[in-house]
């Protein structure tokens, strides 16, 4: 069996009296897109910092691409990293920042995957402007570009869509899918659970520095789906839906209904309602991961 691309075993990190990470274990296999979830202060950023050699573990071990992570290790050349906000030398242009960052690793600019990176940055002529003139979103895109310069085998991203507008967020999601399809492994932390649900196939949930749950997204949220419907006649809709095969639960949530599905398509549910003479005004997919996450970490 192949060794995981990311392997965290017994990771413990304390900052003074604060136990930031407490005996954390998880792994991410090759090609997976794994979301690292947890409320503020759960220890996500600390875990990611240990993973790329910025923070030293007090106990436990972290392996990246089969090697123990040490600051400056050669294995970091195969990793693309974005930790919290993207930051650059403000008086240099975006292009100059990327180039100097790359060349400091002892590599020629010609060997960088600059075409992909600059396409991601999508800064146009602004790439030659000083970074201090950039918006937060532009810096974030430039940060993603930097992480992709090496066509990395593994991407470690901390809140990669922070500061981006909805269109840019969608582009980042598409980008992560393309990176994954290329065979790269992605570990990303995000507060946006809907985003994680769309992008990730696996999740690791942390709370108070400890592992709460880990596994495939579908396993975590259950195999069943859930939709919220607003209909013209709630009573008739409820009785109709209870007869539809694959509808496991119908719960009134005024002004509509929450419907749990198991093996039946949303279109079939809507068709059954229409056939019964019930008008369907709204069909909304529920953020199932959000429900599962809040259940795991005990938050309302």
């Amino acid at each position, binding site marked *: 069996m192949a060794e995981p691309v990311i392997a965290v075993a017994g990771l413990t990190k304390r900052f003074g009296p604060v136990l930031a990470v407490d005996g954390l274990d998880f792994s991410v296999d090759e090609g997976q897109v794994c979301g690292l979830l947890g409320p503020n202060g759960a220890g996500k950023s600390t875990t990611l*910092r240990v993973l790329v050699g*910025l923070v030293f573990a007090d106990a436990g071990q972290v392996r990246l691409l089969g090697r123990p992570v040490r600051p400056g290790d050669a294995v970091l050349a195969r990793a693309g*990293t974005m930790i919290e906000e993207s*930051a*650059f030398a403000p008086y*240099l242009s975006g292009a100059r920042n990327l180039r100097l960052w790359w060349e400091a690793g*002892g590599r020629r600019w010609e060997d960088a995957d600059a075409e992909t990176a600059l396409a991601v940055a999508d800064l146009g002529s602004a790439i030659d402007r000083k970074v201090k003139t950039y918006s937060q979103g532009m810096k974030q895109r430039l940060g993603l570009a930097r992480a992709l310069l090496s066509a990395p085998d593994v991407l470690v991203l901390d809140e990669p869509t922070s500061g981006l507008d909805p269109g840019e967020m969608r582009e980042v999601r598409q980008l992560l899918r393309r990176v994954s399809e290329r065979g790269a492994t992605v570990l990303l932390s995000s507060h946006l659970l809907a985003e994680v649900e769309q992008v990730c196939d696996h999740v690791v949930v942390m709370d108070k520095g400890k592992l709460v749950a880990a596994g495939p997204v579908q396993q975590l949220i259950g195999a069943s789906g859930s939709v919220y419907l607003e209909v013209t006649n709630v009573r008739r809709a409820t009785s109709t839906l209870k007869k539809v095969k694959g509808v496991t639960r119908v719960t009134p949530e005024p002004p509509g209904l929450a419907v749990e599905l198991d093996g039946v398509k949303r279109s079939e549910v809507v068709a059954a309602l229409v056939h019964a003479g019930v008008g369907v005004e709204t069909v909304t997919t529920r953020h199932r991961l959000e429900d599962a996450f809040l259940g795991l970490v005990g938050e309302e």
Partner: protein
Amino acid sequence: MVAVFRTELVKQLRRPRTYVALGIAAVIPIILTIALKANPPNPASGEEGFFALAPNSGLFVPVAALRFMSRFFLVLLASLFAGDAVSSDASWGNLRYLLVRPVTRPRLLGAKLGVSALFAVLATLAIVVVGLVAGVIAFGWEGISVPVAGLSQSAGQLVGNLAIATVYVAWGLAAVVSFGFFVSTLTDVPAGGVGAGIGLYIVSQILDAITSLGSIRYALPTHYFDAWDILFFGRGPNAEMLRGVLLQIPYVLVFCALAFWRFQRKDILS
């Protein structure tokens, strides 16, 4: 090491602050020369010191500029280059990105230290070279002979001693650079490292003025800071200058060792 040194060098070279600092270092000797030319010190007034002697030879203008600027301005510049070498990247949040490359921390720190030292030397050279050019244009390339002041040197001797003085002054900044650099690894506030370098100089100067401290003063990093005066009064380098050179070594070793030791163990949270 070469790659990371080169990129750190380019970063410094493209930083507006660098040009401003080196520009001021270069402009002051020009202003000094113009002032001496326009309003020469009156020998009858009894005015003494390097400024009074400068109009006797263009080669003495850089000596006067070096004396004038080494006493604080050069210390300020050296502290500026060394004191924010690491902390400026930390303050921008960029330090973590410098350290997720396949570049070890000692290599990055070594490159930053080298660049800081290089620019401290460049600032010293800017003062001397610009002062030399401006001085020669204004007062000519010739030796100097002022028996009253005990000063008599040919042009060749002046140039040779100026070169020695330049190296001595630049090396005399080593303790300040090392201390500012060390503090730069401890803080995310650039002013902290800069202030530390200047602070070391000021404290050392104050303590050095307290004669009752006795032989302790001989271990202060700035005690021999002005010992290069002797070069221009016909006696050449002496034991005081040698002690001044040697005294910097333990400060450099201790502060640099602390910087490397600390930085290798530091959690990068900024």
